[in-house]
């Protein structure tokens, strides 16, 4: 008889400490974020307090006693607060009308409002300064003619104008958040209220609204931070009217270029970062936990509230809203791009031209910028997606202890205002600490990744969560290796999410303005920055043509995404 020699899989005596590949992944991601996100941000704060080498509040004293800075602070808080309030006041009724009533054209409106989310905010600013310019704004002229007014009724270069444009471009953030929460809510919670004797309106007030409150607060905070850290809109609308915000002041200070200017910028940035991080903390870590999870039975379609005789009237109001806030601005920008003389109507004699469109496709600097934007966006999206996939795997499929650390860091990164990220990178990555990537495309790719990677990560994570691990296990038990199981089973199933995640990172990077404004050099201008300089210094029509081209690209990609993923993903 043979004596069978059994070899133990791992000799306990020779048990050696070895590095789990999962740990390598975590360490790599954490390392990257530590170097390019945490360290720069910490250094930024450090610099604000140790500007002269030792601890001092000199910089703070100087910055915050300067009246222009004070007004920038108050302006930022006022503009962000009002945009938040108006944004939610618009978004909640819209989300309810679109999701829960028999409003005409619900699907169309939903797509339209969500689509605004993808539009670069500066496009809105460009449109509204054309429409409501106090002397030549076409909408102002229109009102003057109709109501026979002596002077223009609106002036866009005011705080009111700023709030109006900010609201118009950031309410979609709230709309999307609130709509999603409303879709997730079990409709029988509302039905239970109806059967208990409550009218639709009472139900809305006593059940729907309180249940949605955590999501509404989260949505409001999201709008607050987005509006407060926006640069494109206040720089186009605010600055001409002497309304400075923290973001425009920071960029002004950086442009001064002196050591003092940089210190002042830093000091302001610390303020912005503080607000953003406190808000982020509130919305993800405290309110986020309060969100009600409800057991859902079979999926009944949500009970549709009959608007009755108000149906047509309310639909008309929504149409008017869509026209004013979405359609008219886009059309204005598109028309500006083919107008010779902006002072006259586009349809007047000989006022139509394609020369600006020709220009954007031939001028070398524009083509260069487009190439730069394409390269950086593709790189940021690809690396970002790679990190997203690894993070998703770690978060969903493993129980490894440190997995929450990179997740937390990525969340913080995306919650940090763009200006702050860019400034911190400038200060720490220009050779002072052995890394000099200032004036390269690399620094932009890194900045974009820090800001936008989370969108990709969340998409991949939620897709992977929906795939039961037993599907992979079934493949392994059938004889496929772990890697082949991934390739044959998991990958095809999450492919749509991967495509969506990639584009979710790609799109905002492609037309990015704020960070590019701080990080560009002569050879690394981006599309967003190019557009901004044309808008402010050279020729608004060319800027409009560029903006229109960007809009078409963005909508085109979204349409493609919708087709590719069978309607499962689009923004």
């Amino acid at each position: 008889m043979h004596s069978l020699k059994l070899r133990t899989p791992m000799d306990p005596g020779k048990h050696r400490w070895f590095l789990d590949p999962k740990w390598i992944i975590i360490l790599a991601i954490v390392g990257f974020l530590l170097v390019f996100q945490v360290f720069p941000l910490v250094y930024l704060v450090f610099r604000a307090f140790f500007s002269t080498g030792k601890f001092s509040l000199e910089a703070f004293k100087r910055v915050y006693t300067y009246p222009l800075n004070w007004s920038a602070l108050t302006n930022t808080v006022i503009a962000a607060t009002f945009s938040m309030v108006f944004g939610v006041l618009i978004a909640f009724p819209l989300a309810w009308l679109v999701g829960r009533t028999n409003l005409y054209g619900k699907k169309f409106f939903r797509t339209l409002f969500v689509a605004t989310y993808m539009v670069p905010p500066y496009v809105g600013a460009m449109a509204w300064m054309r429409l409501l310019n106090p002397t030549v704004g076409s909408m102002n002229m229109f009102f003057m003619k109709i109501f026979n007014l002596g002077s223009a009724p609106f002036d866009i270069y005011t705080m009111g104008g700023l709030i109006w444009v900010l609201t118009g471009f950031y309410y979609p953030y709230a709309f999307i958040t609130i709509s999603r929460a409303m879709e997730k809510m079990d409709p029988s919670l509302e039905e239970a209220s109806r059967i208990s004797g409550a009218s639709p309106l009472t139900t809305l007030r006593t059940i729907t609204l309180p249940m949605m409150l955590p999501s509404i607060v989260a949505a409001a905070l999201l709008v607050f931070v987005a509006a407060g850290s926006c640069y494109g809109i206040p720089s186009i609308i605010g600055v001409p009217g002497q309304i400075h915000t923290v973001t425009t002041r920071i960029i002004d200070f950086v442009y001064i270029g002196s050591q003092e200017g940089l210190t002042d910028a830093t000091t302001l940035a610390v303020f912005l970062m503080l607000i953003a991080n406190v808000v982020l903390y509130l919305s993800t870590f405290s309110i986020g936990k309060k969100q009600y999870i409800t057991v859902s039975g079979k999926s009944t379609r949500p009970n549709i509230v009959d608007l009755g005789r108000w149906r047509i009237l309310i639909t008309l109001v929504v149409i008017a809203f869509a026209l004013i806030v979405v359609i008219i601005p886009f059309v204005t920008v598109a028309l500006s791009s083919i107008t010779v003389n902006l002072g006259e109507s586009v349809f007047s004699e000989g006022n139509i031209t394609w020369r600006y469109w020709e220009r954007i496709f031939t001028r070398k600097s524009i083509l260069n910028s487009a190439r730069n934007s394409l390269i950086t966006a593709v790189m940021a999206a690809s690396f970002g997606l790679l990190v997203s996939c690894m993070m998703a795997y770690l978060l969903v499929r493993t129980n490894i202890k440190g997995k929450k650390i990179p997740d937390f860091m990525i969340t913080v990164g995306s919650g940090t205002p763009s200006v702050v990220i860019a400034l911190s990178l400038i200060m720490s990555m220009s050779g002072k600490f052995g890394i000099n990537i200032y004036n390269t495309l690399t620094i932009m790719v890194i900045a974009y990744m820090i800001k936008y990677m989370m969108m990709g990560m969340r998409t991949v994570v939620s897709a992977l969560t929906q795939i039961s691990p037993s599907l992979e296990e079934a493949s392994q038990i059938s004889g496929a290796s772990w890697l082949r199981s991934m390739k044959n089973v998991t990958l095809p199933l999450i492919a749509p999410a991967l495509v969506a995640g990639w584009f979710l990172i790609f799109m905002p990077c492609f037309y990015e303005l704020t960070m590019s404004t701080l990080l560009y050099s002569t050879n690394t201008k981006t599309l967003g920055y190019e557009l901004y300089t044309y808008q402010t210094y050279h020729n608004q029509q060319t800027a409009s043509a560029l903006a229109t081209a960007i809009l078409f690209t963005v909508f085109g990609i979204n349409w493609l995404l919708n087709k590719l993923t069978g309607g499962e993903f689009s923004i």
Partner: protein
Amino acid sequence: MSRIVIKDVKKAFGEVVVLSSFNAEFADGEFVTLLGPSGCGKTTMLRMLAGFEKPTEGEIYIGERDVSSSENFVPPERRDIGMVFQSYAVWPHMTVFENVAYPLKMKKMHKQEIKTLVEEVLETVHLSQYAQRIPSQLSGGQQQRVALARALVAKPQLLLLDEPLSNLDAKLRDSMRFEIKDIQRQLGITVVYVTHDQMEAMTMSDRVIVINKGVIQQIGKPTEIYRHPANQFVADFVGKINFLEATSKEKVLTFKKSGHQLPYDGPLTGNVVVGIRPENIRFVSMKGDFEGKLISKFYLGDVNDCRFDLGGEQIRVIAEPTSFDSSTVGETFLLRVDEYSVFEDDGDDSYTKILT
């Protein structure tokens, strides 16, 4: 007081007809169950009673009131109905007390009165000590009882229950079944209960309405439904059954495959299908109707579940547990049939299968 009349109700979503020509009358205090497979239209019927869906055609009366017809439609909040949802739909932002008090608050009752009534109904569902809890601190069964208390507190004319037990585990489902029945008897309230679980339907109902593909198959007492099913669908859906093809001629049924015979004095002639419930077949030592070879047997504790080959067809028999020890696979036995139903052979042979 709360007689329910459903007259020619039809419901279509666009082109798809989910319920065709539903006619029924429920007496005051009756416990009626709508039973059928998922997607048969039973929940749609319940939601039309509640007022969440509008019938495409037909009329519904609750008590003497026309709540739904071509001229009239009463919205759910004015129908005076209590309802328990499959997902319980207990509001997570309110305490148990607030949840249950809600229907009374909608009636603008006085605070003190609300307190008395809520305490009373919480007593009935054994939740008195949980009044100040919030729902997430309660178990599934307790949330279920909160939903029940909320549905009962306003003393509605009619109580609707939409698969209320399907999210509970088996033991709890058992005890809740009796509890709901008890409460209904105590309050004498009319109940319409929707389920796909025949056990729930059999144990709780005064009458069962079996529905398939939007059409009522049979209305009757549980015993009638079980012992005299109107057609093969009902026979198949409620309980276990063997279907055997046979021909009926001169008061004798002859089985097509095995050639065995059974007496028959019904009206059907020609091709028929005979339905025999497995528990209605016994082992006998003489005067058997069938002779069959034992193919398999399974000891289930309370019964011996076995299969026989009758010669060309198989039949399932559920025999008493002691027979397990006294029988051997491969042996031949005599079997006697105590009760059976005969159906017209509609050519659809999807029923003539061995049920497991």
